[in-house]
């Protein structure tokens, strides 16, 4: 409990004072600070306390410097005419009422301090912040009062609530007032229960802590109300936490989707597991780095748009390398799927080492554009802008690919080759062109994924290696030949991963998932969405 309110007479005094002040709160704003400041020219501690409270709630711009000077013992007054001055740190004086320099001050006495006054000052500083013109200051002040449950701030809080126009800050202030009331034995039981209701509406960890630490002499009814509120808050919090996990899971899932979708296409069409897929992602990330370097030296103003320039570049670079790999190597290994796996692994080693010799083995710095940094809250969900951007981007890539495969002639041919290569060839589709193009498309999408991943991961030659096994898991889990399978696979694995993490830890969670997939494959050897029919064997 707060010392200030312990003595009834003092409480009465302060309350009366504030009641009076509240009536005049608004007019006082414009009022001259002179009379308020003059009240400091006294020997009586009680009067000084009164003066502090009066000035603090006045909204006067002089309140902060005067009270700070008082706290530091630099507030002085001239006994002769009861004028109050602030002695500055360099020894000169200014008028406390106006802040103008004062010369020829004469003999002065400092305004005295005792513990009561100091307490009043502390409360006043809090109250001043509550009335501060800057909304951010008011917000943090209200939060501070909520956490400290400082009873001395109650009066100032009431004033502030009366004046507050911002609904969000007002709610915060009401919550702070409720926090004080709940723990206040003098408050009426009904008020305290109502206050519990307000805190319950706030419903976060702080509210929970607040309700969990009521004073020992709390009446049973209040205690019961607090407990049922705690239970309700916990329930809501559990839902929010699950929501947060889902959000993280979707975020991870969209990264997996980006990394795996190109792999799924090439695997679906050609039956080829491209072990160099991860390196395509890595090349996309390095393309971003090169594009940003170029922009930095040529047109620094375009930095915020760098990713939009990097996207087509990455697609083209990775796609071109993909087509080259198909034409030079994979074409000759047609019908030897397992050996393709080895050859592409060789390609991946060469590409990794090439990038390592070219750019060096260390991480490369990729700048995050301003619109992708920062975060905001929705309810109790913390959402970072870069994750959100990647989710949206993954969704766009997915939708574009879906449209491409379903609505364009080339998509039609690709799907035909996926379902039955020989039949498609007999119908006049040039299957080897489809192969080359599909491989280029899959690699290009990996390049796009690289641009996105450069924003959340280290751009190093090993970037792709970190994603390749996860991408395989997504593809074998989701099944091939169906983009929806990849989507479901990526999201399931992403969300499952994030839900396992709190219980099992990141590494064990991943192990459990791998084991799950190994078992799952036994049940459905061709994944969730398997192609049916003779073509699969």
């Amino acid at each position: 409990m707060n010392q200030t309110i312990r003595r009834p007479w003092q409480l009465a005094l302060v309350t009366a004072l504030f009641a009076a002040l509240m009536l005049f709160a608004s007019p006082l704003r414009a009022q001259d600070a002179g009379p308020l400041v003059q009240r400091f020219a006294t020997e009586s501690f009680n009067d000084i306390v009164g003066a502090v409270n009066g000035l603090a709630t006045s909204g006067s711009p002089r309140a902060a410097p005067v009270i700070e000077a008082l706290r530091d013992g630099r507030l002085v007054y001239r006994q002769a005419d009861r004028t109050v001055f602030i002695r500055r740190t360099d020894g000169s004086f200014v008028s406390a009422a106006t802040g103008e320099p004062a010369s020829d001050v004469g003999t002065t006495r400092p305004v005295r301090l005792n513990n009561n006054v100091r307490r009043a000052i502390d409360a006043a500083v809090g109250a001043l912040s509550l009335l501060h013109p800057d909304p951010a200051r008011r917000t943090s002040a209200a939060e501070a009062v909520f956490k400290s449950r400082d009873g001395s701030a109650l009066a100032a809080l009431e004033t502030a609530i009366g004046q507050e126009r911002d609904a969000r800050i007002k709610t915060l202030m009401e919550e702070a007032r409720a926090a004080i009331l709940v723990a206040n034995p003098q408050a009426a039981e009904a008020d305290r229960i109502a206050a519990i209701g307000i805190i319950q509406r706030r419903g976060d960890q702080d509210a929970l802590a607040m309700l969990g630490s009521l004073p020992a002499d709390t009446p049973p009814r209040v205690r019961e109300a607090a407990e049922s509120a705690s239970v309700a808050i916990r329930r809501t919090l559990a839902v929010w936490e699950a929501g947060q996990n889902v959000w993280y899971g979707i975020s991870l899932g969209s990264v997996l989707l980006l990394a795996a979708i190109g792999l799924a296409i090439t695997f679906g069409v050609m039956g080829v597991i491209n072990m160099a897929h991860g390196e395509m992602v890595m090349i996309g990330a390095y393309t971003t780095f090169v594009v940003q370097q170029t922009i930095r030296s040529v047109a620094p103003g375009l930095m915020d748009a760098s990713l939009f320039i990097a996207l087509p570049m990455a697609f083209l670079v990775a796609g071109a390398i993909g087509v080259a790999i198909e034409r030079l190597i994979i074409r000759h290994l047609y019908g030897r799927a397992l050996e393709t796996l080895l050859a592409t692994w060789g390609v991946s080693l060469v590409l990794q080492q090439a990038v390592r010799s070219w750019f060096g083995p260390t991480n490369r710095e990729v700048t995050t554009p301003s619109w992708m940094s920062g975060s905001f809250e929705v309810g109790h969900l913390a959402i970072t802008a870069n994750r959100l951007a990647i989710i949206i981007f993954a969704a766009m890539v997915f939708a574009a690919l879906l449209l491409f495969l379903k609505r364009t002639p080339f998509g039609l041919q690709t799907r035909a080759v996926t379902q039955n290569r020989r039949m498609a060839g007999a119908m006049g589709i040039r299957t080897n062109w489809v192969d080359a193009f599909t491989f280029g498309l899959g690699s290009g999408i990996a390049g796009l994924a690289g641009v996105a991943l450069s924003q959340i991961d280290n751009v190093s030659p090993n970037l792709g290696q970190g994603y390749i096994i996860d991408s395989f898991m997504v593809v074998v889990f989701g099944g091939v030949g169906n983009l929806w399978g990849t989507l479901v696979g990526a999201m399931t694995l992403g969300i499952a991963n994030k839900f396992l993490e709190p219980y099992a830890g990141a590494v064990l969670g991943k192990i459990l998932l791998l084991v799950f997939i190994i078992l799952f494959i036994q049940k459905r050897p061709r994944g969730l969405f398997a192609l049916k029919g003779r073509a699969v064997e």
Partner: protein
Amino acid sequence: MMLTRFLFEKIDRAGWVFLVLLGIAAVLVPVLNLAVPPGSMFHVSNTAVGLWGKYMTYALLALAVDLVWGYCGILSLGHGAFFALGGYAMGMYLMRQIGPRGVYSHPVLPDFMVFLNWTELPVTWWGFSSFPYALLMVALVPGLLAFVFGWFAFRSRVTGVYLSIITQALTYALMLAFFRNDMGFGGNNGLTDFKDILGFNIQSQVTRAVLFSLSVIALMTGYLVARAIVTSKAGKILIAIRDAEARTRFLGYRVENFKLFVWTVSAVMAGIAGALYVPQVGIINPSEFSPANSIETIVWVAVGGRGTLVGAALGAGLVNFAKSWFTGAFPQGWLFALGGLFIFVTLFLPKGILGTFTDWWKRRGERREPPASSPARQPAE
């Protein structure tokens, strides 16, 4: 006698050459190392003995991979896991042999457990102070894992690329697991600082020479066993499975049983290779589980010649020799060379060095005699 006949009956010319060369190496290398003074041109240096011993264990691993890949069409990207498990079993025995000579002088617990403030030996470590038990585990742990894994995978008819991917997932999951300190296998650092094996100092040159010879003998035994399997009637069915699995099944063979058998044997061979590898290298850590290691094993087999057994061992030796040379001469170039090797071999040498050589040899013979009409090689599915 039966067994000897069974093992030696079906060995071809390449096999005899291989066995004889290995037999000579098993005797000659230790002799040249220990008995010939270091100044002599016939002296084999200590480093060379260690290095070649390592190659021998790699060759045994390659043999194991060739048995499943070359003869049964199972491309395992996770054989490194069995190798590492065998290695860990041996490493655990060697750790227990350190006894109170560790840094913390604890009579029972290895150093890393004392460091983690553990007070008791975990169940997984019980019995590893006994050498026979450790040997049993060297074979049992990889064998059992392979049996359980194969039981599920082959029954569900997980084949081709899917099987390769989940074997890779298996070794990846094991790598992550062994990196954890809680697993009780030394975490990141693995097991090292071994002192002695069966009472012999593991650093001494005699012990190392004996380990070399044992590795050679293990490789020869592995070859004989593998050769006996692939030339038996069951071996014919394995090849049939490799070339046309569905057709073999329709002919009434229980494909999954044959696969499971050869898969488990192969895993045990890999485990034994790992157990011989660890005392010679002096350390085992979770990076042995890394998927890249397993894939590298595949390229040894591909280079030497898939489905030739001798070629697999040869490939392991050649590639690793090249690796040692490259990492000394052009450290930057090794990954280029290895990657290029993967591409070159799959594109231009699908049968590997030995397979290509054998073909050439046969064709030379055929040119002298009129060619016999050979049946179509391409299996119909």
